[in-house]
């Protein structure tokens, strides 16, 4: 039997994350948290914009943090589309949402999400989740 109480480890610098949320305020708060974790941040205001950005910038995103309920293309659809794209079938997707009921969470996982952060989010959890989704161990 083992005991452990160690927190998430320090992230390597220069991870490039795309933050997808239709609330500018949420994007800004996420950006501030992420930048303090030395993560480079770009933003999209909905799934459609995110998909377009990703389509155009293949190879320039290491991680996607996405809201679920958004106009144009919601987080589920974004996940679904990215997982059927040859360029993004392996890019970690973390859902960041107030929708924390089991049905929504599991649906996101089945569509290919890697982890799930409930809103309002805590910086520690953010760091921990990013650390683990980027580890293939």
């Amino acid at each position, binding site marked *: 039997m083992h005991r452990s109480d160690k927190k998430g480890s320090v992230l390597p610098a220069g991870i490039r994350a795309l933050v997808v949320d239709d*609330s500018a305020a949420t994007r800004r708060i996420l950006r501030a948290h992420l930048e303090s974790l030395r993560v480079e941040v770009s933003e999209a205001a909905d799934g459609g914009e995110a998909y377009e950005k990703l389509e155009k910038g293949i190879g320039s995103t290491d991680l996607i943090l996405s809201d679920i309920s958004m106009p144009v293309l919601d987080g589920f659809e974004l996940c679904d589309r990215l997982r059927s794209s040859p360029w993004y079938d392996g890019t970690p997707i973390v859902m960041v949402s107030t929708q924390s009921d089991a049905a929504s969470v599991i649906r996101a996982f089945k569509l290919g999400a890697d982890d799930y952060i409930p809103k309002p989010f805590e910086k520690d959890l953010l760091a921990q989740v990013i650390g683990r989704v980027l580890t293939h161990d």
Partner: protein
Amino acid sequence: MTEIAQAGRGMVDRMQVRIEHLDKLLSLAGEVIITSANLQDLERRAQDSVARREPFPSDGLDMIKTSNESSRRISQDLHDLVMAIRLVRIGDTFRLFRRPVRDLCRALGRDVELVFEGEETMVDKALAERLVDPLLHLLRNAVDHGIEAPLERTRAGKSARGRLVLTARDGEHTTEISVSDDGRGIDAAAVRRAAEESGGGETETALDILCRPGFSLAGEVTSTSGRGVGLDLVRALVDEFDGELTLESEPGRGALFRMEIPKLRAVNIIDALTLRAGRRLYALPIERVVASLGVPPGEIRSAFSRDRFFTYQGDVVPVRDLEELLGAAPVEMEGGEIPLVVVQGKRRRLALVISEFLGPQKLVHMPLDDFIRRAAGVAGTAIFTGGRLGLTLDIDELIGSVLGSDGSSLSRTGSPAAEAEERASSAGERSAEGREESAADRTPSGDVSASLSLDEADAAELAEEVSQNLAALQDAFLNMESDPESADHLNEAFRRLHAVKGNFTMLEAERAAETAHHLETVLDFLRARRLERTPERMDLLLDGVGYLVRAREALPGPAPERPEDLVRRLTEETAEESASRSVENAGDLIGRTFALSPTLELQTLSAMKRGERILETFFVFRPGRQADFLVAYLLLRRLGLRGKVLATIPSVDEIERGNCGSAVKVLWSTAMEEAETAAWIGRLAGRYNLTEHGSVPATVFGGVEE
């Protein structure tokens, strides 16, 4: 922004100008000065003649003729010169594609030689900039779906290395840009067959079909699937420049997409709808005008606040006075019908009250520089017929200034301060953007505060979003009533309400967030048709929204007391079962054994035959912000990466329904050695806040021997 788009833009924002062009510009400036001096002289002589009541001298007339001619020539030369200065080498654009194509080839296992032809061709900088994305799509399609993998090519008797050619050619009237590959080509018949399933017109060519937005996503023909991705963008660009897109293809031999773009004729000529509002003349880009119509005053309604609306094609459109929007006195009604022009923003429409329509006209639009202070919505000036000066409008900016940046209407309460509030909020929006940029410059702070702390600006912005979303929510309810058949308004209401809930949660206004949650549940039931839309229910929803509006007004303070029966009425609607979860504690869990089933037995046996170890592992984790079932699910997925999960307690089914405490027990098989397994699980501990974990070789099937 992607790197390549940035590079494309950088190239265009600044450009090199050849010295000879500058020299020519200087000499033209000299000619302008001389011509203008001549004109001054002529004006003086003309005044003299008038004063002395003498006929204008004939040499003066000759001079007018000469000045007129040279001014016409100078204008033409200036225009040609500017157009020449705007030209850039297409090769600089082509070069941007080397890396993405190389990266893509590597990712897809293709061997492709990218060849540029006609790199010296000069094109207008606007075109060069706009070509980047469409060309990237064409190149990507060619690599992904056109050019075969090396082995497949060799089998087909082709060279292993594919050839992808990007060509520019300078014609007399057009610039031709093409992308060709020697891949598998496009089977027009197959494309058409695929299109028939999705119902296509018979007159459409294969190219038309490929250019349908999203065609390829539905397409199932292997040799063509994906071929249409982004082609709608290519077609849109070509259309915008009045050009032509053609496709030549021979199955098995390759495909060629050719864009023929007419050379630009003039700068900044716009097709405009001209109109008068008050004493001023305005021009709107005609493609943004949805309708211009006269509306009886009775059709313009007020709702929720003093904001005016009218229904156009089933859509509730906010009505605003154009002059008033730009800071002048409102247009004076001249009796009878109110002339309205409905304009289309990115997402929403807006109806502008004006004085009269003047009709469509081609205008030379002169943008105002950014350093000139201008009202939001004014793009520049233009000379109208008759030589009068008018203003050209930027529709997106105008709508943004009224409805907020995402096109949602602001809620106002009709107080005299409403106007000031509107101005302040649109100014706030601009400064908010400024802040967003400065956030990037902020040095990362070393502080690792555990919880989210909102500064005042964040809170104000969240509150502002609540206002916008509440107003849009009210719009959506209004639309639901006038258009009960459509599901769009209900979905829109749901989305807005959800955003409101999120922001209230972040603002820690719990009562408001909880009320929003109940409302959301009712809407969800309506959406799923588990509840019917009745007037009583709509009233209840509006009551709920009314409470949220009051809660918004109370910010930054806590939400006010709720009307006593509001929550009860809302929850009664859906009879929300207060989920009685069977949360197990770790002790109970460890004692439970896996239920035996033939399938499980079989799976265990075959894992053993593969030489894998069968383990019973349990995890206990610290409950946190992530729900227990979520952490349990994530742990199971992790195990799945290193082995095969055979059974779990609670069952996967229960976990997926959210019935799980902060512990889970797993029966799984793995090819990892014992020490490796222990070390790996040890690493999981920190990542998933495990407080306890342990593994023992499985003993569940006593009868099974190796």
